[in-house]
């Protein structure tokens, strides 16, 4: 039983070392995300400031914290499919993968999980430290990330982020399968990018949407990525549900993995290999 996981584990550890590096690229994207957060926070800050008497439970502090958490977890989102997998179809190197005694679904899933997890870790840490510790230290409390009201909330947030990571990899595998079938990453990426960005709260925090629309967002898997974890952290409930929102994530995870397995098996049966 233990040996079954070994190749995937080995890949994860080896690749993680390569990806989770503190290069110029990481620093640049941290800078870009902080800048993006600053722009959004300025807008929300002044929206709330000039507002008199809203009956809106999602306060300015929550909105600002939402932006920080959303930017900190940006690397988790499956914007693009794995360029290597689509490339391996064109070059023919996918045949080497097929000769290995490993399960294709698990193999692709591990690759996507590794990519998301390794990129997430350094970015998340730096942005959270900046927003939760540096900003209050220099007395910019109004723009800082608020602390969770209780310790269980923080714990539930990390569990939920982990679930979000698993959902992200499950979505990415399905995207890879589509890229393999259409022989191009462009189409999938063009469709996925706007969907993921909006439903992960990248355009506006989803609690700003009308109540009915917030319920609709759960009908797509994308809000399970980071929107639900952030709601848990902030304690923004919908009809009294907060912690239970994780059940939506688990449901989507099961659905996506089953669907992904089915699609991959079909794809592998009708594989057309180019190049050679």
């Amino acid at each position, binding site marked *: 039983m233990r040996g079954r996981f070994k190749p995937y584990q080995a890949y994860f550890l080896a690749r993680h070392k390569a990806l989770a590096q503190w290069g110029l690229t990481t620093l640049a994207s941290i800078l*870009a995300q902080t800048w993006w957060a600053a722009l959004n926070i300025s807008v929300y800050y002044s929206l709330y400031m000039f507002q008199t008497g809203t009956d809106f439970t999602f306060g300015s502090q929550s909105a600002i914290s939402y932006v920080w958490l959303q930017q900190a977890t940006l690397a988790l989102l499956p914007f693009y499919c794995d360029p290597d997998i689509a490339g391996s179809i064109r070059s023919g190197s996918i045949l080497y993968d097929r000769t290995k005694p490993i399960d294709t679904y698990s193999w692709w899933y591990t690759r996507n999980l590794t990519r998301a997890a390794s990129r997430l870790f350094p970015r998340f840490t730096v942005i959270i430290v900046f927003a939760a510790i540096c900003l209050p230290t220099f007395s910019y409390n109004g723009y800082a990330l608020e602390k969770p009201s209780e310790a269980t909330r923080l714990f539930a947030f990390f569990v939920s982020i982990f679930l979000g990571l698993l959902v992200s990899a499950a979505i990415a595998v399905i995207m890879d399968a589509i890229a393999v079938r259409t022989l191009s990453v462009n189409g999938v990426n063009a469709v996925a990018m706007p969907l993921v960005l909006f439903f992960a709260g990248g355009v*506006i925090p989803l609690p700003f949407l009308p109540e009915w629309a917030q319920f609709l967002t759960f009908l797509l898997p994308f809000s399970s990525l980071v929107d639900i974890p952030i709601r848990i952290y902030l304690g923004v409930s919908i009809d009294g549900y907060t912690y239970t929102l994780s059940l939506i994530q688990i449901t989507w995870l099961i659905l996506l993995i089953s669907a992904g397995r089915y699609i991959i098996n079909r794809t592998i049966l009708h594989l057309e290999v180019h190049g050679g």
Partner: protein
Amino acid sequence: MGDSTENGKVVMNSTEIRSRFPRMLKSVRLYALYLRLSINAQAQYKSAFIIQSLGQLASSGMGFVGIWALLSRFGSFQTWNIYTIGVLYGLINTSFALAEAFGRGFDVFGSDFVRNREFDRLLSRPRSPILQLLGHEVRIKSLGRLLQGVFVLVFCLASAGDFTLGSFLVIVWCIVGGFFLFLGIFIIQATLSFWTIDGLEVMNGLTYGGVQAAQYPVDVYPGWIRFLFIFVVPFSAVTYFPTDVVLHYHDNWGIVEYVKAILPILGIIFFCISTFLFRVGISYYISERN
């Protein structure tokens, strides 16, 4: 597509002035050829073009859905409503779509020209590298963002602005200024890649970030961001200030209307400075090919 016919016309009427500007005309003709080649190449993949345009339409459209959701939650934004903000949104998206379509060569300069030494080949040709990079690729998929931007702009102007010849000219002038401003940002990004290729996504903060930021009136931002958008990278000069002439929100910055209407020229000045920097960058370029 329209551009190639326009340029075609210039070339056709050129016999009498050919002697005076032979070099410039050759450049125009060459650019027209580049455009036609690039469009033909992309037209080979029709379904890819359609799906990518739709994706772009959706992703820029989401931005407007976001603004709509915010304003329906908060009512209005100081003195701004959905239509007046929509004018800013439409302007900046139209300018960006055009710059993204024509400035693609500068956007991919680091990865497609410097890293693989392809730039050597450009330098060895008897034409300006800036012209060759402009002609590298015209991204027709930017049509998605362009259509969406123009639609929002026209719709919101019809509801909130004056409908006169003067206001039409001001709006077109703003788009011209915005186009050159974004093109200038792409050129600065290309200039940086003479020194480093990693970490250039920082410039997305000015391109995509600029689009995002300039959708809102500049006075919502704190002082340092305001300073940046007025004096360093003049986004406000191509959206916020000149549109006052059309929308009459009379901000209290104390600038005369005529001056506001002229301000988009700052975008062109920014572009000129960036091409100067690019030339400086070229002089530092050392190829490692042997």
